[in-house]
């Protein structure tokens, strides 16, 4: 069998699956977003109307859409830096020559990443229970009044941010650890001989060399955090007062609760454009910083 035909044989099954079950729906989603496909249309095709960009304009006029957008931006703006900071701290600790039992710690810190988000969200909801939860108990021991973590519109999103950081920091930690270990030991030695302190070495050697990895981690995390869904779904049902309704949660309700499939597709596309824009911006800024 000639090589080219073999190549197509090998590649086609996967391409067909990806093409039919991913790419095709993506294009269809765009087409759907230009119509007002809903339950009435599902029942009778005559009830379908082509609305052009009407769904998009309508969404921009919908208060709940803006709420979900600002909730998601809040989550990303606070969650990503916090997550990366914790991951970096953990990676630095693991990289340190003074650390013992590195294998054990690496496993322990990574464990939350592997767990099923639904299961852990259930645990978390219980941990942060206003009256019977551990967190308020411990806070009470130091004299802080119980906080209504999941019931108050002010604390609900911070709780979810804390949860996301806890669940994901291990993932970035591993990547950053690999980046740290790629920093040549000679550089550190030379700096130490010159009398540089740990912090100085961090600032002038480690971080600059880590920049590409940090950028990668930032992009992956940002893109992932924009897709916040499971946490609000399991823990807060988007409340209280829609304070934890993320863009995807809004899309889910719009699409699979109310069956406004046209509108929901428009939301999905807007989210996609947003993620694309933000990550492209981050790439551009990151590259520019590199050449500076």
């Amino acid at each position, binding site marked *: 069998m000639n090589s080219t035909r073999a190549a197509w044989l090998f590649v086609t099954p996967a391409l067909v699956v990806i093409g039919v079950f991913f790419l095709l729906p993506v294009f269809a989603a765009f087409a759907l977003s230009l119509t*007002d496909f*809903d*339950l*009435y249309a*599902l*029942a*009778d095709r005559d*009830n379908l*109307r082509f609305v052009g960009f009407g769904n998009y304009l309508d969404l921009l006029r919908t*208060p709940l859409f803006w709420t979900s957008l600002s909730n998601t931006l809040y989550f990303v703006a606070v969650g990503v830096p916090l997550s990366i900071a914790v991951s970096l701290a953990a990676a630095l600790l693991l990289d340190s020559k003074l650390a013992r039992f590195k294998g054990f710690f690496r496993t322990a810190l990574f464990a939350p990443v592997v767990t099923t988000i639904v299961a852990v969200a259930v645990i978390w909801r219980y941990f942060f*229970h*206003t*009256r*019977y939860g551990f967190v308020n108990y411990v806070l009470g021991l130091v004299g802080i009044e119980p906080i*209504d973590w*999941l*019931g108050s*519109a002010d604390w609900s999103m911070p709780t979810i941010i804390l949860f996301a950081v806890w669940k994901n920091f291990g993932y970035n930690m591993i990547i950053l650890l690999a980046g740290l270990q790629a920093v040549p030991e000679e550089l550190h030695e030379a700096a130490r001989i010159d009398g540089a302190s740990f912090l100085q070495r961090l600032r002038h050697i480690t971080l600059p060399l880590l920049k590409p990895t940090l950028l990668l981690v930032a992009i992956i995390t940002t893109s992932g955090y924009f897709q916040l869904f499971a946490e609000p779904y399991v823990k807060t*049902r988007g*409340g*209280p*007062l*829609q304070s934890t309704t993320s863009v995807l949660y809004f899309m889910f309700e719009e699409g*699979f*609760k*109310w*069956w406004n499939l046209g509108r929901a597709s428009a939301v999905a596309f807007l989210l996609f454009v947003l993620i694309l824009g933000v990550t492209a911006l981050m790439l551009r800024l990151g590259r520019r910083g590199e050449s500076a």
Partner: protein
Amino acid sequence: MLAALACVFAGCTRDADPRTTITFWAMGREGEVVAELLPDFERRNPDIRVSLQQLPWTAVHEKLLTAYAGDALPDIAQLGNSWVAEFAALDALEPLDARLAASPSIERADYFDGIWDTNVIDGHVLGVPWYVDTRLMFYRRDLLAAAGFQDPPRDWDEWRRAMATVKQRAGTGKYAILLPLDEFGPLLSLAVQQDEPLLRDGDTRGNFESAGFRAAFDFYTSMFERDWAPRMSDTQISNVWNEFANGFFVFYINGPWNIGELRRRLPPGSDALWTTAPLPGPRGEGASVAGGTSLVLFRGGEKHEAAWKLVEYLSDPAVQLHFHALTGDLPPRRSTWADPALAGDEPSRAFLNQLERVKPTPKVAEWERIVIEMQRAAERVARAGADRDATLRALDTEVDAILEKRRWIINRKLATP
């Protein structure tokens, strides 16, 4: 082997069973209880097997619509009667007129009129009422008596006085009434007591800025402002029945299934602590929501014969009385109410009383969404202190937008002769 794989994919079951299997979706407590009735049904109909799926109320609306969209509806389902209009708009329900006419056991005249009516859309009967409910006032009669009120309040003014007194005696940390902020039942009950309808213009626009709704809305939100009700959603109450027994609140607006639940979960002898009373209205005894569920069959199903037999079985008066004994749910057939089990039960009597004054909710497909938006508006005022006028105006605007498609379809129908 490929065929076997295909079989696994498409989810076929190894059905060597010669009986006809019908799928039945039931919710909540009824779903749990009806499982106990099924063996008797299967004994009487040995050629039918019932595959019961129990669904939680929080998920069922989504699930039904997903099943509709995915062509995966069950053969028979319990459907909230406020959803009958929605599924009728989707043309999803099988009309039952012919079967009813031919049925020896289901007599139209035996059913409460208002309840039967909720199942009639465009002249066709699309469901058979399974049980009725409405919202009533449950209350701690001992705590109320201790506050100086021997009889339950009969109108809003008395109610306000009762709640104020009870709250004063209870102090901080305890409340007069429990109104979970994510449940629309209580506010809706107060709203239907008004003369003005909830939607106007042939049910194509919101009417939430009307004086009537405004009165109900103000009354409801004032209960939070006066600290008579805690600002909580039902996920924040850890166990509502225990809290009721502990005196966390005195009044609770809920449905007849609660009678069964309270009897089941509270320690024996607690019956003396609580009872029910009809809802107070603005000017005297008030109306309440005409609730309940019906049994429906879906269009396009292939097992209507077998499914209909289950409908007839569950509508049998003796079976309904048995069901009532297990759940506390109220049968929709007048003949069953003569039975001493119902006529002699004090908490149930208040329901019979209330059933004389029930009003249906608007029969529009979008109702579920509208009522949730209504509750969200109330929550915004109660929790965040939003401005009432602005909130209700925004609510009307939102409801008008939700109903836009309905207006378009109706106008189109009117335009084409």
